[in-house]
């Protein structure tokens, strides 16, 4: 009897414990799922904004073409401008012309390379860069000249073979994240004759050590030219570098010789091979393919004529010849570009073939569609992959170009692998990096990693909080840069002038005006306030952010400059041919006029003039455009508060 009751109590107890455990597990799984979803949303925001930015490339490219066609409107003294913008690449300068003038001071305590390079130089560089030393411009230039010389001997596609005892490692985008490269070499070993590598483009831009990565890769290439293979990515492009940070990094680290480095680098890029073919089975290229991809053509073209995605071949027609004859000095300016430069360009078809390779993305939908997100290349479906792989008797396509949360992704029925090697690309905690090891006849193996700065691993919810706030900040900056257009769109739907819209109406306007395909309903709680009926107070989205104004000016001008600041950055950099950071008021004004008419921006000239005058702080007729652009930044009202909040937890 005693036993019976105690076992009954035990049962009751364990039943309670079971129920309690179920409650906790259920709650935890729900919480964990929502956390993962928030992480996904943050990544989606980062990615959408990144691609929308790239779409801006197309607009900029059109702008340059537009400028060229309208040079007649540019004042007579401006043909120099056009020349600088579209001038042909520097004549093959003598190496001595560059190196002869540079002296390495005795005080230089950075790494010193010995030519011909050996593996000790690779070690030397790695050790030096770990201690944040900077390689002297003299060595940088030597490496670049040598690299160009060796690359010129190489065909458009590198053909290489593996064996069971000699696997090859394929790495994706690094984007200047040196720590990731160090980690890869640590885990996978340095490149050598028995440890070959393919680096699949996008070595530079965004991260802050693009130069160091490039130097390590180029030096390794010079030591092991048959075992370290480099493919060109869409960021191995001097114009992309102007927008995405590498140009700035070079000019900052190499104040004296940066310009020379940029000039040689521009050429080195054009000599990078388009792709690598492994065991005649695996095609490794940076972006992807299109339905018209013609590998035979791509093997034949003169790849070094592909200077930049923003410089498509100019159509040569009778019209242009007319213009040429009419204008005096302008003839010369245009002449540099057009006459005799037929041979300096690829044909339109060839150019598009290369763009497809560098910019395309795989998608699940069958067929081939223009890649509207990026403004270049296309989206290709599984049927396109099969068609092209079969056509050239290949088995697999390995590409990079897109950030993936796990560092890699397999799609199109196992035929396409994306590998991305920059961990924490958008933000700390945003994604893992990965690399692939493969050899003929075996299944590829994937290795993942993630750099973490914290000495102890932060719990997931803190990491998610961090990337979520970062993503929301970016999104709010987008919103503020389109504030006028957004308000107009909202007000159009707000018949009663109540200041409120339904969720559906708000989401519709946001998507339309911003051009970002995001889960607006789920994000709304971070962006606006909602009342108890579920209606959105649309002005609340602009409350805690504003663009810091350098001077009291009309809102829409501020917005416009802020919105186009990346494009303006590129344009300024091009005008500023001596890389001094300064341009003249004249140049600034005429550039703005052209910009305005092409981008259909409705700003009163006088307002702009006034702004420009104020920015000429020295009153010497020149504008420091970096200062100009820096003056337009977004202030988040609750920044201070946010910082202290996290400390509490």
């Amino acid at each position, binding site marked *: 009897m005693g036993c019976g009751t105690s076992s009954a109590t035990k049962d009751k107890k364990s039943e309670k414990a079971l129920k309690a455990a179920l*409650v906790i597990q*259920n709650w935890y799984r729900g919480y964990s799922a929502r956390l993962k979803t928030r992480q996904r949303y943050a990544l989606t925001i980062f990615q959408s904004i990144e691609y929308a930015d790239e779409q801006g490339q197309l607009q900029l490219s059109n702008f340059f073409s537009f400028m060229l066609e309208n040079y007649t409107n540019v004042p007579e003294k401006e043909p120099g401008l056009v020349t600088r913008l579209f001038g042909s690449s520097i004549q093959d300068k003598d190496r001595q012309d560059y190196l002869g003038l540079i002296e390495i001071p005795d005080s230089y305590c950075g790494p010193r390379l010995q030519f011909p390079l050996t593996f000790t130089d690779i070690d030397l560089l790695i050790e030096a860069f770990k201690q944040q030393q900077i390689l002297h411009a003299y060595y940088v230039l030597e490496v670049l000249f040598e690299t160009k010389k060796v690359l010129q001997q190489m065909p458009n596609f590198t053909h290489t073979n593996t064996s069971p005892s000699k696997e090859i490692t394929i790495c994706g985008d690094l984007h200047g994240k040196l720590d990731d490269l160090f980690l890869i070499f640590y885990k996978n070993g340095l490149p050598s004759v028995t440890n070959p590598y393919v680096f699949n483009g996008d070595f530079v831009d965004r991260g802050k050590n693009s130069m160091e990565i490039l130097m390590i890769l180029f030096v390794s290439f010079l030591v092991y030219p048959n075992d370290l293979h480099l493919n060109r990515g869409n960021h191995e492009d001097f114009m992309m570098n102007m927008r995405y940070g590498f140009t700035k990094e070079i000019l900052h680290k190499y104040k004296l010789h940066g310009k020379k480095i940029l000039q040689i680098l521009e050429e080195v890029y054009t000599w990078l091979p388009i792709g690598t073919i492994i065991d005649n089975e695996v095609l490794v290229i940076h972006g992807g393919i299109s339905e018209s991809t013609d590998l035979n053509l791509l093997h034949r073209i003169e790849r070094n004529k592909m200077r930049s995605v923003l410089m498509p071949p100019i159509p040569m027609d009778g019209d242009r010849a007319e213009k040429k004859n009419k204008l005096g000095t302008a003839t010369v300016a245009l002449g540099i570009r057009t006459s005799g430069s037929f041979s300096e360009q690829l044909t339109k078809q060839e150019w598009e073939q290369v763009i497809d390779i560098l910019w395309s993305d795989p998608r699940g939908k069958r067929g081939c569609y223009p890649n509207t997100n990026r403004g270049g290349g296309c989206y290709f479906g599984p049927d396109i992959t099969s068609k092209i792989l079969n056509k050239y008797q290949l088995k697999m396509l390995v590409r990079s170009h897109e950030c993936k949360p796990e560092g890699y*992704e397999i799609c199109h029925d196992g035929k396409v692998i994306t590998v991305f090697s920059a961990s924490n690309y958008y933000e700390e905690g945003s994604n893992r990096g990965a690399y692939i090891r493969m050899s003929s006849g075996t299944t590829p193996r994937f290795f993942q990693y993630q750099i973490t700065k914290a000495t102890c691993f932060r719990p997931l919810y803190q990491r998610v909080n961090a990337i979520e706030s970062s993503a929301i900040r970016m999104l709010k900056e987008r919103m503020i840069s389109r504030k006028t257009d957004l308000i107009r769109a909202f007000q159009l739907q707000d018949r009663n002038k109540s200041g409120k819209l339904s969720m559906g109406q708000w989401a519709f306007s946001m998507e339309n005006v911003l051009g970002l395909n995001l889960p607006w309903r789920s994000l709304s709680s971070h962006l606006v306030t909602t009342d108890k009926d579920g209606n959105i107070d649309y002005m609340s989205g602009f409350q805690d952010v504003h663009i810091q104004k350098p001077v009291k000016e009309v809102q829409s001008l501020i917005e416009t400059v802020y919105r186009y600041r990346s494009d303006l950055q590129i344009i300024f950099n091009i005008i500023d041919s001596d890389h001094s950071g300064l341009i003249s008021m004249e140049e600034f004004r005429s550039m703005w006029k052209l910009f305005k008419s092409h981008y259909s921006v409705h700003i009163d000239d006088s307002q702009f003039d006034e702004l420009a005058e104020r920015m000429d702080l020295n009153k010497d007729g020149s504008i420091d455009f970096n200062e100009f652009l820096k003056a337009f930044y977004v202030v988040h009202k609750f920044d201070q508060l946010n910082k202290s909040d996290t400390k509490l937890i």
Partner: protein
Amino acid sequence: MADDRDRDSTEVAVAEFHKKIKEAFEVFDHESNNTVDVREVGTIIRSLGCCPSEGELHDLIAEVEEEEPTGYIRFEKFLPVMTEVLLERRYRPIPEDILLRAFEVLDPAKQGFLSKDELIKYMTEEGEPFSQEEMEEMLSAAIDPESNSIHYKDYITMMVIDEN
């Protein structure tokens, strides 16, 4: 009259649910072909505010899977099932106080905390056991490294703040 209004408001509600479900689905639709990996369906359903148990989730997946499971769930099958779930307000989340009481049941001595080993034992042996990954994840946020214990009241408060 009243019926029409009811019908209208239901239609509006359904339309909004459809959009919400589509949004949540698309975020996991990596190849943009209206399918998601079946292993992510649980996450999607939970992200929409529902809290099914593992068993209930299993049943839901069976409803949305193909006749011959492919490992992928199509949006066309997912949408109507999920809409019903939302309309019927099934699998409501657990209120904070119930959660607190559950922890208290496991802490009969009312010490205000559970030891790491105790929590691990309950979570990995009772109910619908955690995988090792889930256990580690929960511990990383919940555990107080100095005492090696989980002060559940503080933990719950922290999680609730984080969600809001």
